[in-house]
């Protein structure tokens, strides 16, 4: 947890108006949004919620006036006891890790513990917890990546001082001592550039720079995924959805373009062939056009196939199927 900003997604989730609807976990027990803010019996005490849930189910069942119904009630009770016991175990694990529903304060501290202990999340909020874990994790990785970059640059002051001393010495030997402030600044710039270049060209810096870029990208991807999840819950288009649409559209444009070119080449070929009998001189031109069209068609087809293969175009898949 080197980056103090790592916790932002949780505070953002806690402040998110979509997470603060009135809790009613019994309305739909599989609607996880009801867990996010939770009531006294749900978010803070999931076992109590579970017991309440099964009690309601039992109440909703008809009285056992005959043997068959009594058997059903018995089975339901056994099932509820078994699941409640199971839930208690899971809950214990979560309590150990902090527990709580996503977006709640308990959830926040729970995530910290899960991260600290690298514990796999459980239960209905598993996927959301996993996503937040990932988000927190990639943000936490920014710290070491920045530290490595700083480490790669750490030799700069020493390099700079050496470069500046060397330049001064060089000037002195040449009988050109620094005589103005501007001359001093220019020398400072030259030394700085020289020292930085030494580091910037090094493999260590290149790797640290790459590591930093990758860490930044991972954080941004995780954040986008999280944001997409939020957008999905309120029925707005997501980035991923737009990406899919744009890719399909662009592939369709490529295909149309390739077809247009082929049609144009074929049209030219036909026109030249039609013109050929009328004039003996047109024959070579027709022949050249035919060759060019054939070559172009072959190349476009190759390109199209490769492009389609690379992009997993549906048309290509269908042909292969």
């Amino acid at each position, binding site marked *: 947890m080197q980056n103090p900003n790592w916790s932002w997604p949780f505070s953002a989730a806690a402040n998110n108006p979509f997470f603060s609807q009135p809790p009613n976990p019994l309305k739909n027990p599989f609607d996880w949004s009801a867990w996010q803010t939770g009531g006294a019996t749900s978010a803070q005490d999931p076992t109590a919620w579970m017991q309440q849930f099964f009690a309601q189910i039992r109440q909703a069942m008809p009285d056992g006036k005959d043997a068959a119904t009594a058997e059903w009630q018995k089975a339901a009770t056994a099932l509820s006891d078994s699941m409640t016991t199971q839930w208690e175990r899971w809950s214990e694990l979560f309590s150990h890790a902090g527990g709580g529903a996503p977006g709640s304060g308990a959830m926040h501290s729970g995530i910290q513990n899960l991260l600290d202990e690298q514990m796999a999340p459980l239960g209905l909020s598993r996927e959301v917890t996993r996503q937040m874990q990932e988000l927190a994790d990639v943000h936490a990785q920014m710290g070491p990546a920045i530290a490595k970059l700083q480490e790669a640059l750490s030799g700069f002051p020493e390099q700079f001082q050496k470069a500046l001393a060397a330049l001064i010495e060089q000037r002195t030997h040449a009988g050109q001592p620094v005589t103005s402030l501007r001359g001093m600044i220019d020398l400072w710039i030259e030394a700085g550039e020289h020292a930085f270049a030494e580091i910037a060209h090094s493999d260590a810096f290149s790797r640290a720079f790459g*590591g930093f870029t990758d860490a930044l990208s991972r954080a*941004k991807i995780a954040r986008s995924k999280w944001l997409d999840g939020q957008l999905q819950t309120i029925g707005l288009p997501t980035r991923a959805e737009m990406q899919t649409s744009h890719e399909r559209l662009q592939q369709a444009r*490529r295909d149309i373009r390739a077809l247009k070119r082929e049609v144009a080449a074929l049209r030219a070929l036909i026109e030249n062939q039609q013109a050929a009998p009328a004039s003996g001189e047109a024959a070579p031109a027709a022949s050249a056009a035919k060759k060019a069209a054939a070559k172009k068609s072959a190349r476009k087809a190759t390109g199209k196939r490769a*492009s389609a293969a690379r992009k997993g175009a549906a048309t290509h898949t269908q042909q292969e199927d």
Partner: protein
Amino acid sequence: MTGFSMPNMPVAIDPQKAMQEMANWQMKFGALQANLRGLQDETNGVTARECVYQQDKVRLYRYAGEGNRKSPPILISYALVNRPHMMDIEAEKSLIRSLTKRGHDIYLIDWGYPDPADRVLSLGDFIFGYIDDCVDEVRRLTRSDAVNLLGVCQGGCFSLCYAAANPEKVANLTVMVTPVDFQTPDNLLTKWAMHADVDQAVQAFGNIPGDVLNVSYVSLKPFQLNVQKYLALLDIGDDPEAVRSFMRMEQWIFDSPDQAGACYGEFTRKFHQENQLVQDALSIDGVQIRLDRLTMPVLNIYARDDHLVPPAASKALASKVGTKDYQELEFPGGHIGIYVSGKSQKLVSPAISDWLIARN
């Protein structure tokens, strides 16, 4: 830099002179502030032009050649990085104007500003899509079978790929500050890109923000580009026209379009990380790019002091092309100076013009 102490060195700075210097800076700074106030952005270059073709965000502009002299038309494929008006940034520092004055019609591809929907555009979409369409449009407008293609930096890489795949459509090829071997020892951009998971970056960012690239470019020479450059601005602070000129460049430098994600990822991986172009191992949308298919005349212009594209990265083209008509021109300056310096107008545009006229 805490704890830093000056080495024991002879510095002969006269206190009186130092005071004078500081007073001078104060005055320049005051004048600079006055000259910066109210300056407007100028984004489209200075030479008259018309849009002759457009597709999506791509525009093809035509700058009409001057006079009765009919010099060969030129199609310029600019890089996706930064905006193309750098080639026409000021009347006296405009490569485009310099060429139109020599009678060339100039066609310029402006890629526009990609938005998030453009993140799926691939290298092939740019090279075999947009460039091919612009080439066809220029062929149609000029009633010629093949164009004179001029590629700039990354646009030069695109031009090499395009010309190698479509040699029948390119009569003459000029590339400027164009890397071919991306892994020369002095190529810092490649070194920084080597260990990054670029596909993951594209997944994360979609389009790669122009500001991210700006940070990278400025970080290549952090002292010069963050300190020295602005001290130089202070030096010219009392010269309104010089300040204006400086600010045009400043605006151009930081007016960076985002990079279409898929294209950026593919370019970084195939060109920088795997160095496929110089090894003839490059394949774009299934089309093999072999530099020995460059059978048309090739003019390769590189900048001697280029810190972005080292000369060796460009000169690697010499041994790879299939043509015997290959020429190099070394420009005594840097990556940007090759377009906007006074020397450029005297050296580069006449060289391009003469070279083309001799082959048409």
